């Protein structure tokens, strides 16, 4: 979160202090040295450092310390003044252009375009030719150079912000346009503008000193860093200090501004700082015991706990807790639960695609290969894991719009998937891929093979993803919300397709289907596993769970779905069975049962024990609730023990 209201962001402290120190020392020059920066002493030309002149004297015998400090004043004043003018003009034009369109928009876009097409230094030189060098020319030139970037940024940021719903909401409320701009739009683009301001200040100092270096900027005898370097150049063999001092001053100042700018950007846009999800290197981390599998399962998780590393200060958060899950061969197991319940992480762990900040802190993973061997992709060496992914186990994702690489043709992406596991000639690869596209119901598969993803609709892309996943006839397919982003009619088509493909793959296909919609699950799954706050709370055959849920959470989920209550209507006073509150964060689960503070059936006992996943007598289903029928035998046993009673 950008600014917690009153504290100064920690990441900015060092950069701000450095910047303040530099600026402060330049403007406190009269206190730091009594020397006069323009006082010439020809007899002391190029004299070395002394007490009176700590940085020595220059080619005219002037005090170098004074010149650096006063020169800094000039450089900084020129740079900041110019940046400020550029910011004021540019922001105004950009803001007006984006919000009110019309003439302002034309100026903001076209005029800036033109200015941006002159290389900066050249534009400055053109103006200097006409007006002659000098400080005020300098400020004018730099402001002219840099106002377009401000109007660009202000323009695009305003467009972005105005498209956000809260600006629309203000319009819908009838708030006056002027007030919307000032109190809603402006504060939200200020971050980007201030980053641009520091960028501009750094660039302006560079250009100013460059021009002064050429003798076309600040006019002598007024001191400036560029000029000092220019002057000292001729004598650098005798007196290298002459170039070092102004060079160092210039570079340190620019560095300080750049540093400030970088930090400011981090503070305003914290997501850039995070490592993010890194799928490129999901390398093996530890070697677990060799994976083992029951004879009838395609994959198994045993006691899997996934922890998020939250830095040195905080304890890791257990995002997924103690998951024991068996995917039976040739069956479709559905994983359901609300967002954040850990469904996707569980499936990524199976694929060995966990983000680098999350690691399994306990438990075992095992997947059956075609050869019959069992492997664990999280701890397998990268080279070995590559052989398993795509061949023995495949995955399709929620967002068909972003799951395919936008710059490569569909065919290229399919062929590379095939060639990763099979030695095939290009021709054969093409034929097999076209056939696969055909099989998933893509019309004109030959042509689609050469299409780019953006030329296909969302439904088509999801079909391509499915075709690609099944190219090597994997034994296990993981589908992570494959239809959530699609329209209902398209969703129905994709579900039908998945069901048919499963029935028709001769080598057999087990599936892990992830969804938050119990209705879809009823359509496709053999078994259902319900997750809540990182734990499995109930599992069993789909029909049993959906018609007779034993866990209060599953029951509440079913109650809250309007599609399952066709007899109810709001106008008749009916209300859905909503669950109050929201799911807890993984690091703040209540003691005992994690569902306790939202559970309609909660009793005191629920806070005392963390319920286990109690299996039913026939072992077909299991529930994590101390009041479930399955739990009774376990708890009675517990009560028999004297210490508990």
């Amino acid at each position, binding site marked *: 979160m950008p600014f917690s209201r009153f504290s100064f962001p920690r990441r900015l402290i060092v950069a701000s202090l450095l910047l303040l120190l530099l600026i402060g020392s330049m403007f406190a020059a009269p206190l730091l040295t009594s020397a006069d920066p323009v006082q010439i002493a020809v007899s002391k030309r190029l004299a070395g450092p002394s007490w009176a002149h700590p940085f020595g004297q220059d080619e005219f015998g002037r005090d170098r310390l004074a010149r650096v400090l006063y020169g800094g004043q000039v450089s900084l004043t020129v740079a900041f003044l110019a940046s400020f003018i550029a910011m004021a003009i540019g922001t105004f034009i950009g803001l007006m252009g984006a919000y009110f369109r019309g003439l302002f928009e034309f100026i903001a876009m076209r005029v800036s375009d033109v200015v941006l097409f002159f290389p900066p230094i050249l534009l400055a030189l053109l103006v200097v030719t006409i007006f002659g060098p000098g400080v005020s020319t300098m400020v004018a030139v730099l402001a002219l150079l840099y106002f377009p970037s401000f109007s660009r940024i202000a323009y695009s940021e305003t467009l972005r912000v105005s498209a956000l719903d809260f600006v629309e*909401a203000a319009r*819908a409320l*009838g708030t006056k346009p002027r007030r919307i701009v000032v109190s809603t739009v402006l504060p939200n683009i200020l971050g980007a503008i201030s980053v641009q301001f520091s960028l501009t200040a750094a660039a302006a100092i560079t250009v100013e000193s460059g021009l002064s270096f050429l003798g076309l900027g600040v006019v002598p005898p007024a001191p400036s860093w560029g000029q000092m370097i220019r002057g000292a150049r001729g004598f650098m063999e005798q007196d290298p200090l002459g170039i070092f001092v102004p060079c160092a001053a210039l570079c340190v100042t620019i560095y300080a501004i750049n540093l400030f700018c970088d930090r400011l950007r981090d503070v305003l846009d914290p997501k850039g700082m995070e490592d993010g999800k890194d799928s490129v290197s999901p390398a093996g981390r530890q070697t677990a015991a060799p994976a083992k599998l029951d004879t009838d399962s395609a994959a198994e998780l045993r006691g899997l706990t996934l922890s998020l590393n939250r830095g040195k200060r905080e304890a890791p958060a257990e995002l997924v807790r103690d998951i024991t899950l068996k995917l039976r061969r040739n069956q479709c197991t559905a994983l359901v639960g609300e967002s954040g319940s850990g469904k996707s992480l569980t499936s990524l762990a199976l694929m060995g695609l966990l983000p680098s900040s999350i690691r399994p802190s306990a438990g075992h993973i095992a997947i059956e290969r075609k050869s019959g061997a069992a492997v664990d992709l999280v701890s397998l060496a990268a080279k070995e894991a590559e052989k398993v992914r795509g061949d023995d186990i495949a995955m399709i994702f929620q967002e068909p719009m972003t799951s395919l690489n936008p710059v490569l043709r569909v065919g290229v992406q399919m062929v590379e998937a095939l060639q990763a596991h099979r030695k095939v000639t290009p021709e054969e690869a093409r034929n097999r891929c076209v056939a696969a596209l055909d099989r998933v119901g893509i019309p004109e598969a030959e042509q689609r093979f050469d299409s780019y993803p953006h030329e296909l609709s969302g439904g088509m892309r999801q079909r391509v993803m499915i075709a690609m996943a099944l190219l090597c006839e994997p034994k296990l397919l993981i589908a992570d919300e494959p239809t959530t982003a699609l329209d209902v009619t398209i969703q129905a088509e994709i579900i039908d397709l998945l069901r048919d493909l499963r029935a028709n793959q001769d080598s057999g296909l087990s599936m892990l289907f992830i969804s938050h919609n119990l*209705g879809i699950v009823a359509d496709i799954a053999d078994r259902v596993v319900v997750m809540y706050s990182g734990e499995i709370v109930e599992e069993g055959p789909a029909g049993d769970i959906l018609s007779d849920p034993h866990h209060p959470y599953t029951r509440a989920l079913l109650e809250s779905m309007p599609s399952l209550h066709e007899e109810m209507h*709001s106008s008749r006073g009916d209300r859905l069975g*909503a*669950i109050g509150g929201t799911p807890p964060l993984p690091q703040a689960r209540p003691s005992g049962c994690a569902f306790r503070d939202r559970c309609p059936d909660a009793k005191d006992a629920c806070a005392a024990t963390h319920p286990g996943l109690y299996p039913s007598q026939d072992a077909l289903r299991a529930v994590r609730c101390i009041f479930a029928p399955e739990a009774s035998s376990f708890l009675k046993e517990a009560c028999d023990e004297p210490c508990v009673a």
Partner: protein
Amino acid sequence: MSRALLEVTGLTKSYPGSGRGIFRKSRVPVLRGIDLCIAPGEVLGLVGESGSGKSTLGKTVLKLIDADKGTVRFDGRDLAGLSKEELRTARKDMQIIFQDPYASLDPRKPIRAVLSEALDTHNLHTGERREARLKELMDMVGLSPEFLGRLPHEFSGGQRQRVGIARAIAVEPRFIVADEAVSALDVSIQAQVLNLLADLRAKTGISLLFISHDLSVVRFISDRVMVLYLGRVMEIGPADDVHFKPAHPYTAALVSAEPGLKPKPGRVRLTGEIPSPANPPSGCVFRTRCPYAMDACAAEVPKLRRLGKTRFSACIRDDIPTGAQ
């Protein structure tokens, strides 16, 4: 029928096509002659797939977007005839709730400022009564008044959506457009918000245009339902009738595609893609995917035919075995 609060006739809207410079493509029609009316206290549900023009319709009736053609009358007054200032004042009576609970609140404004701004705009509950009103609003949407000082990021999605609702009802409007107001929420939270809207309606007698792509959500909350496809109305009628006895082949397909626990009788599966709004089919826009399409369907645009007192369907065939007979 009582006098309509909102009356829309012949609403048409297109967007500029893609491409820039001299090769700009022609305009893309998004709404093509929509008629509708909403009575005081009525909830009209609007369903359709993406690109059907639902959000555009919602924003055009509020005049947040200007229509190309057609009139919108609110409480008998033509909104196009109002001056800027009059329109601003009129906005007190018509509000909107958005889909994305994260984009719909200014990340920099505490909830108190959000609600106060709404009241300030129309000079409501000024002075001492302000605080009491803010508490009352928080109460109405089921949030603790202690939360007034908090910033949006301190809330969950469902709570933010409640704040969005509080902002909309703060000015005591008579009509609200709820654009996919529950679509981004998890089921359990979605049920909370649906119940809240139903309670508000029961208590205040407000009218709603409830937009959603989820047919059963719309059926639960609405009195009447309107089905949109590629900018045209396919069917409109009482919610339960449209849902359980769909008259139009498209509605039938929508209902049947709806996932549910029990298998649906008479399953209709569509094939093919939703055509691009940039070049919609001639005649009946649904004909490229309609299982009952015949040559005549391409010839002209089917008119909405009256099937019952408040029931209309835009299909030229009346021999289709859907639920309406």
